[in-house]
């Protein structure tokens, strides 16, 4: 009676082992695709066909990354990132943490209104948010070390992700809500999309609170790490 085949899980195993070995992720994913296909007893031609169709159907994923690059690149050549850092450093009240908290709030609100394309890593985080965070932190701490820069940049990218993810499910017309609605309906449970969106609000607030506190705390962490570093040679 057990008709479930466990063989395709080999593909999952390839991924877990590959990442465990810290192999090149693109290689891991490519091999996992081929292994999964073979484990499911698909002929090699069908695997190639699935790869080709998959690529063609998912071209928008690369499109949104590629299109803004020329604009951002040109502006960077003329000092966009430098200007972003200088501009924010002129505001005495804005620390790196407060800037990211504000961005988190705006990103989550705009995503909740369905405006998910107002942020993003190529067009907002690299040219604007990250340099501004560096500028604000630099105003307090002086010239930043490479490690401090990297930490601020990683946190800026994380803040964009958290704001986007936990805002967008509150918007009724967003794909995720409609996907949940239609999946439940297929399984004989009829729920209004509005209810699903509504019950996303508690988690969205938790995300704002948790990540907001973390970015606000970042200012103090950076200052403390700097103080510890300056103490060390004297001791």
């Amino acid at each position: 009676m057990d008709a479930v085949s466990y063989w395709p899980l080999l593909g999952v195993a390839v991924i877990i082992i590959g990442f465990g070995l810290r192999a090149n992720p693109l290689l891991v994913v490519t091999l996992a695709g081929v292994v999964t296909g073979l484990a499911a007893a698909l002929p090699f031609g069908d695997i190639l066909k699935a790869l080709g169709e998959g690529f063609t159907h998912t071209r928008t994923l690369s499109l949104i990354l590629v299109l803004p690059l020329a604009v951002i690149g040109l502006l960077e050549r003329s000092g966009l990132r430098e200007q972003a850092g200088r501009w924010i450093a002129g505001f005495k009240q804005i620390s790196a943490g407060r800037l990211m908290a504000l961005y988190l709030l705006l990103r989550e609100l705009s995503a909740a209104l369905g405006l998910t394309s107002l942020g993003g890593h190529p067009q907002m985080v690299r040219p604007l948010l990250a340099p501004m965070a560096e500028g604000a932190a630099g105003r307090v701490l002086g010239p930043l070390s490479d490690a401090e820069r990297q930490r601020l940049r990683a946190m800026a990218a994380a803040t964009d992700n958290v704001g986007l993810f936990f805002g967008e499910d509150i918007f009724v017309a967003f794909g995720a809500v409609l996907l949940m609605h239609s999946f439940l309906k297929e399984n004989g449970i009829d729920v209004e999309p509005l209810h699903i969106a509504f019950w996303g609000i508690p988690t969205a607030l938790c995300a704002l609170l948790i990540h907001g506190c973390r970015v606000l705390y970042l200012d103090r962490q950076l200052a403390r790490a700097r103080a510890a570093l300056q103490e060390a040679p004297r001791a």
Partner: protein
Amino acid sequence: MLSIEFFYGLAGVLLLANGVLTALDRAHPRRWPTALFWSLYGLLFLVGGWLPAKLSGALVLAMGLLGGLNLVKSRLQGELDQARRDQGAERLGAKLFWPALAIPGITLVGALGFPWLAGQGLVWVAPKSATLISLGLACLIAFALACRLTRESPLQGLKENARLMDAIGWALLLPQMLATLGILFAHAGIGNAVAALVGQVLPEGVRFWAIVAYAVGMALFTMIMGNAFAAFPVITAGVGIPFLVNQYHGDAAVMAAIGMFSGYCGTLLTPMAANFNMVPAALLELDDRNAVIKAQVPTALLLLTANIALLWWLL
């Protein structure tokens, strides 16, 4: 009517241009494999819709191997001239923000405007991809603005585009490969196997463990698939509906909403969510390619705990 195909073609030209620029660069450390990678990428964008699926699949496999075996390298080019950039910032000041902010601004206007126009009977763009087409148009307009403002030639723009593409490197292909893997996984019936496994290990009759299994299962399976949309139907059919709804009579809307968000906690934790975690690490030139994930770990774990608590109270 403007369709998304036009922008696929445009992206294809940009990718192909990077391939040509690489091939012309004699000092490139991995000149030919890198040029081949970008050229194939561009080619698939330009004519991928017309090629037989098997052939484009073979090309995709070749790209996966070129990038996966670390044969794709970025150009050895010095960092941009710092003095020049400071001078530009001095000269142009806050004006530099305008083209950058024009991208989200025009996208927004188009995303709201084109469907409205369509409602008035003016169907200028394919309605299903209004937002993406708006983004494409916004980038074209912003590019013209940027060229004018910085007094640079469009050719220089092409070179800057190639510079940033190089910075991302093979990671640019990863989101698409993962989405394709998701399709293959679904095709091979991975979901049924996982749901069957979870059902077997779940202790019966304890509501708390069913909630934990649902939320944590969603996060873990999302980490494997790189995508909460792929995990949601599997874990909801395998654990959510049979246990949380049928056995414990929970509210399906609460289960779905918080379940999907539990999946998003997994998205924050996995290199498989390449376009959110790996691509930004490359784009921001971070030494540790997992730095973005590491920055997200505390948020994701706290939020997953919060989701379990919320399911316990609200379900």
